[in-house]
């Protein structure tokens, strides 16, 4: 634990140093990156050191005399810490070149400060071992991420996004605290260890309250509304950290609470599973329908959170039905997907940031052909896209495979559990296909083909640290795919200290990791062999360049290319009842039709729902009630008299 504290101090120092050094921007950034990196590496070492120990590491100190502030490092925490410690330095590295506006030196320093604070807060969230410590860490996390979103505060969109985010995160936090209160009711203790003694009803209520709270942080459908606004509005390295790492804290919260409750209620399991499926499928459908890269990536995060939820939900179903192997695979798949998603989603956000940084366009349909002008970004983005589509030999497949494995285990169950497992498999398959569709769209529209607007020609690869960060992550994505064994074992080890799963050792894995590794390597080998063969076949053959075959159409311009919107049109329309599209199209009239316009808007069902069912009625009621403050002093005195009369009648 001391090592972890040292790590936290280093990370925080990495936040404070830029504040002191903001007059010398480069120095500030160097200090930030190096201190954060040092801190995170120390932290990784701390996690590694705690790894071998059989009992959780504990720490506690009094806080404000009557509360205690206790931390513990158990296996679940060790599963969530590496994504934080791994991603934070890479993202910090990326931010070195990304935040290069000299005129914003002070703002950059503040951004660095909150970045460090967010990292530290997330570490504390995973370590917290009682309600007070958890609450503090959680709120610090909310605060710092809110501040990070506000980086581009001049833009109205940013302001709205930050506002929405604050609302969601604060309400969510209050619900979580309410759940804590319910659980503390019978035992009177704020310690996590006492939670399992709470009565059944309190546990159920608390779980669902917390599910709303944590779910809104994680961005699970339909509580995700803040997410597609906040991620595009935030600077890209912040989106990378928030989407890659922070929203996983919601998952962590749910898992932590679930195991603390020690109540394997099938209702919990089924709810989580269904939420996962809904959010997975709808997340990716909405992602497909989006036109801004970062918004698309945000919805894709919702989808991946759905996948993680499916994994955890399957794990919970396994526990509630007594199928330990299913449980182990489900949870381990979820945990591994947390790490994997952190890697590739950060990578993708970084790529989007690189485009934004050098080209400045947010809409995909204004881009194109960037692979030629931004080779590093393009290649790493392609790797990330394959990985996020869950395709071998990249890391996304490994975790999805584990989740599939758990789901197939669930087919042996009866009744609703069977049906849900089956639905989970179908959902996963759908998600896989749709995700591939979604990311072929991004890669194809943004990086391939020809530039659709002039400014896309001017693109160049971003600064070296950004390229280095993206390359690192791309290599990591492939690396996990090719050497999955240690990572799968890592995910399983995350379950070690969880009482119901302690008995399930990594032996159930059998040869699974090995097989996955072998196939991935065989595939890569085969690919290399084919490449060599191809080279051989092309030796001495004429290879020439020409324009694309236009099927007889000779006046091809870059504007006739397929657009992202048309690419996804039919898939999106297929999901019509769950997605609301409005198309405006002035039909062609007369023999010589004039200029016409076609526009299409996709609205989020949950957002519409929230607006219709909550925001509008509340505003309406509030407006109606404003007459209370009417200005008539006579009326005001009347209130007092009336209140007295009413209360006296009650007595």
């Amino acid at each position, binding site marked *: 634990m001391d090592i972890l504290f040292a790590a936290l101090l280093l990370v925080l120092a990495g936040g404070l140093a830029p504040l002191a050094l903001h007059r010398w921007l480069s120095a500030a950034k160097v200090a930030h990156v190096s201190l954060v990196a040092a801190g995170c590496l120390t932290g990784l070492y701390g996690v590694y050191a705690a790894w071998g120990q059989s009992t959780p590491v504990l720490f506690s100190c009094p806080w404000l005399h009557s509360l205690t502030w206790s931390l513990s490092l158990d296996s679940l925490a060790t599963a969530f810490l590496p994504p934080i410690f791994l991603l934070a330095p890479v993202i910090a590295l990326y931010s070195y070149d990304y935040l290069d506006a000299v005129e914003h030196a002070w703002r950059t320093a503040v951004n660095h400060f909150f970045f460090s604070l967010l990292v530290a807060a997330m570490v504390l969230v995973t370590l917290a071992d009682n309600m007070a410590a958890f609450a503090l860490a959680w709120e610090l996390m909310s605060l710092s991420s809110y501040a990070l979103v506000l980086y581009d505060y001049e833009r109205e969109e940013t302001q709205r996004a930050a506002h929405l985010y604050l609302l969601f995160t604060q309400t969510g936090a209050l619900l979580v605290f309410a759940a804590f209160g319910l659980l503390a009711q019978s035992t009177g203790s704020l310690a996590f260890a006492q939670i399992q003694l709470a009565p059944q009803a309190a546990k159920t209520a608390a779980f669902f309250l917390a599910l709303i709270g944590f779910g809104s942080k994680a961005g699970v459908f339909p509580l995700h509304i803040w997410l597609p606004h906040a991620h595009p509005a935030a600077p890209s390295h912040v989106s990378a950290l928030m989407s890659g790492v922070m929203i996983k804290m919601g998952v962590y919260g749910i898992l932590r609470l679930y195991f603390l409750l020690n109540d394997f209620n099938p209702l919990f399991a089924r709810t989580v599973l269904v939420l996962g499926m809904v959010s997975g499928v709808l997340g990716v459908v909405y992602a497909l329908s989006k036109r801004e890269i970062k918004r698309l990536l945000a919805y894709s995060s919702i989808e991946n959170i759905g996948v993680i939820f499916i994994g955890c939900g399957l794990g919970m179903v396994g526990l509630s039905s007594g199928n330990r192997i299913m449980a182990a695979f489900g949870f381990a798949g979820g945990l591994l997907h947390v790490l994997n998603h952190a890697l590739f989603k950060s990578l993708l956000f970084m790529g989007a940031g690189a485009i934004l940084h050098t080209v400045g366009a947010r809409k995909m349909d204004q881009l194109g052909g960037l692979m030629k002008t931004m080779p590093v970004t393009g290649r790493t983005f392609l790797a990330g896209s394959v990985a996020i589509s869950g395709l071998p030999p990249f890391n996304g497949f490994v975790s999805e495979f584990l989740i599939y494995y758990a789901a197939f285990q669930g087919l042996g169950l009866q009744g609703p559990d069977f049906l849900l497992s089956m639905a989970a498999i179908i959902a996963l398959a759908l998600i896989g296909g749709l995700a591939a569709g979604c990311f072929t769209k991004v890669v194809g529209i943004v990086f391939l083909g020809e530039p659709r607007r002039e400014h896309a020609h001017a693109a160049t690869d971003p600064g070296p640290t950004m390229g280095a960060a993206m390359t690192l992550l791309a290599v990591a994505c492939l690396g996990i795919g090719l050497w999955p064994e240690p990572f799968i074992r890592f995910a399983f080890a995350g379950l070690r200290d969880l009482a119901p799963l302690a008995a399930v050792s990594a032996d159930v894995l059998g040869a699974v990791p090995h097989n996955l590794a072998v196939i991935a390597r065989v595939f890569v080998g085969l690919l290399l062999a084919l490449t060599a063969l191809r080279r051989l076949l092309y030796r001495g053959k004429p290879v020439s360049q020409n324009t694309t075959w236009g099927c007889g159409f000779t006046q091809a311009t870059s504007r006739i290319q397929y657009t992202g919107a048309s690419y996804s049109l039919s898939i999106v329309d297929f999901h019509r009842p769950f997605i609301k599209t409005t198309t405006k199209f002035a039909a062609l009239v007369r023999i010589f039709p004039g200029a016409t316009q076609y526009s299409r808007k996709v609205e989020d069902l949950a957002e519409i729902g929230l607006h219709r069912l909550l925001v509008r009625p509340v505003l309406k009621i509030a407006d109606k009630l*404003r007459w*209370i*403050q*009417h*200005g*008539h*002093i*006579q*009326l005001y*005195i*009347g209130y007092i*008299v009336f209140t007295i009369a009413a209360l006296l009648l009650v007595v």
Partner: protein
Amino acid sequence: MINSIDLILVLILLAVLLSLGSSRMMALIKIMALQGAMVSLVPIFIEPQARLSNGGILFFQLMLLIKAVLIPGLLYMALNRIAIKREVEPLIGYHASLLVGLGLVMLSAYITRRMGLSLPGDYALLLITAITTTGGGLFLMMSRTKAITQVIGYLMLENGIYLVGTALTKHTHNIYLVEFGVLLDLLAGVMIMGIILHNINRAFDDVDTAYLEQLKD
């Protein structure tokens, strides 16, 4: 003795009813002076032997001075400056107000019975008077639009509360120093209100609360 206290209480009640039915400011202030004097006298008549101790005499003299002379005097001065003679458009008309006043008396009698305190005769009437005065004061504040009338209503409320105190609590609790503090507060309050009234009048050329409805949501 009994007759005199009843007389005083009836006078107070009458003052309440009159104030509810009166539209003329000057009359209202006079009524308040009368009521203030009567209210100050009540304790002396109720338990004279106990109350008329050393400090007591001084205190009651002071109270009489403040309630019957100083406060009405202050109001009189304020009224002179603002040159308003009558309440023109009350929110609730004078006849209706009178009826309300009568209703208040009945309600007070009912409440007094309901309280089940088994008070001796004078005390019961005292309590009825007290509650009526309190309610009358509140009603006056709610139903009149001129700010000065509201001050008068506030004074009536205070009188009523004082009477309730007299009726309900044992005199042994009375510490004249403390009561004097209360009186002083009242006096200062009326002074402050007078100053504000003056300023309101200067700013709006009227003391109608209809001008005081700018601040709202």
